[in-house]
């Protein structure tokens, strides 16, 4: 069966990996190319670069990073951040990216997703959804349970089902769209995958928003990548139980808390199908090289 994927995400600014990576002896802990190679050696299933370079004029830098990285690795590479035009996508794919991740531009102009999918194929268009849980209105006067355990029912019974707003511009702006509806819409527009980030959980290390993952995974027929909140291996497990096809994680791998093989060994033990590395494949039947 198809393996659940583990995808390290690198934040790249002005061609450098922000905060660096410390899980292995690197000559340069901020060099995206060297880090990408190290992750390939660990058996990461894919890699995501998130370009957080401030200005649009500096896009050439990420193209150079993608080009140098793609020429050194043999696994899928997704690039996101600041993609606004078909030309942006074409440049990144030409530089060697396999997929691009679109966020703000998709929300502001949904037809952009459609055009991108029609031009380049759904398989390379990932729509990133940054979701923030909506506050529920509680009626503090309705006690559902009696003595010892108080549970307050919401005013509107429909509000029992949690809902999320879609944010854009790096989580700064509420688009007013409902995350579940938006997920269904981007699937119809031709997105091949959804990168689903919980703004509430991002950076907290207290676990993914499993309600969000569960509801979006059930609502769409395309793969969902869970993102935001991973702090330990159990969190990865919870995301897969909630229906994620893949998990995105940054700090738990970057700073050596866990290695990818450790994460996979744990997940395998828990009954999740993951890809383990075949060790000596390069050596078997070796006869020296020719050209």
């Amino acid at each position: 069966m198809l393996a659940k994927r583990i995808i390290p995400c690198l934040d790249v600014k002005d061609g450098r990996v922000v905060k660096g990576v410390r899980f292995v002896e690197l000559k340069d802990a901020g060099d995206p190319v060297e880090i990408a190679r190290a992750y390939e050696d660990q058996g990461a299933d894919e890699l995501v670069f998130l370009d957080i370079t401030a200005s649009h004029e500096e896009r050439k830098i990420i193209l150079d990073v993608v080009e140098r990285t793609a020429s050194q690795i043999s696994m899928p590479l997704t690039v996101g951040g600041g993609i606004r035009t078909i030309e942006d996508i074409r440049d990144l794919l030409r530089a060697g990216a396999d997929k691009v991740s679109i966020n703000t531009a998709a929300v502001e102009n949904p037809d952009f997703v459609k055009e991108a999918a029609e031009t380049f194929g759904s398989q390379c268009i990932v729509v990133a959804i940054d979701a923030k849980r909506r506050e529920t209105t509680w009626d503090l006067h309705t006690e559902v349970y009696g003595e010892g355990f108080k549970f307050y029912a919401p005013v509107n019974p429909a509000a029992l089902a949690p809902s999320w707003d879609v944010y854009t511009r790096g989580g700064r702006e509420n688009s007013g769209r409902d995350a579940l509806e938006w997920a269904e819409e981007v699937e119809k527009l031709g997105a091949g995958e959804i990168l689903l980030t919980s703004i509430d959980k991002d950076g907290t290390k207290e676990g993914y928003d499993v309600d969000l993952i569960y509801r979006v995974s059930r609502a769409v027929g395309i793969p969902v990548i869970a993102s935001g909140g991973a702090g330990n291996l159990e969190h990865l497990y919870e995301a897969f139980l909630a229906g994620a096809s893949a998990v995105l994680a940054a700090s738990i791998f970057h700073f050596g808390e866990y290695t990818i093989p450790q994460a996979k060994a744990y997940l395998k033990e828990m009954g999740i199908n993951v890809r383990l590395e075949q060790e000596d494949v390069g050596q078997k039947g070796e006869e020296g090289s020719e050209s």
Partner: protein
Amino acid sequence: MRIAILDYGMGNVRSVETGFRRVGFDALLTRDPEEIRKATHIVLPGVGAFRDCMENLKTYGLIEPLKEALQSGRPFLGICLGLQILFEGSEEFGESKGLAIMRGKVVRFRGDMSEEIENRKTGVKRRYPLKIPHMGWNAVRILKDHPILEGIEDGSYFYFVHSYYVVPEDDVAVTTTSYGIDFVSAIARDNIFACQFHPEKSQKVGLRLLKNFARWRP
């Protein structure tokens, strides 16, 4: 030797070139019919839509050189769409015609497949729909030994990204993969080897496959 990779506007073909370079072989990205005639090894990659793939091949005048190459006995490697278009046709967009080098057709995964995931801690089982496209790493079961699969263990994981799969009429399947159903994930006949998965994206096992291909003398 000369490895020619057909570059006809269907996806990230440079990664195939990168793959060959990483195992010590130079390959040429080309859409020049003359280069294809001169090549000793031909690779037809491609991701995207079946119909666009055939149209692009036509536009660049590559159909004839490709058919010549397939019949010439020179090693041929088809990847993803490069496997699918060897067949007679695809059900994508109604019906699209392929090269018909192999007998059989290309069909879409059914949308009603599902998988069950059990929580080992609580025993609670949940059923989820299988996602389409079939995207990610999946195990490849080897049915028949083939020089291209030398050194690659049965059950190795390769990277896939596709919504359609081939249903050959003849006995050409060399590997199968399971995704709701068992489908043919690689075929071989004479000088032709073609796979649904992407060796150029499959790290060590994939690079091994590319190396085997470069050394293949059918």
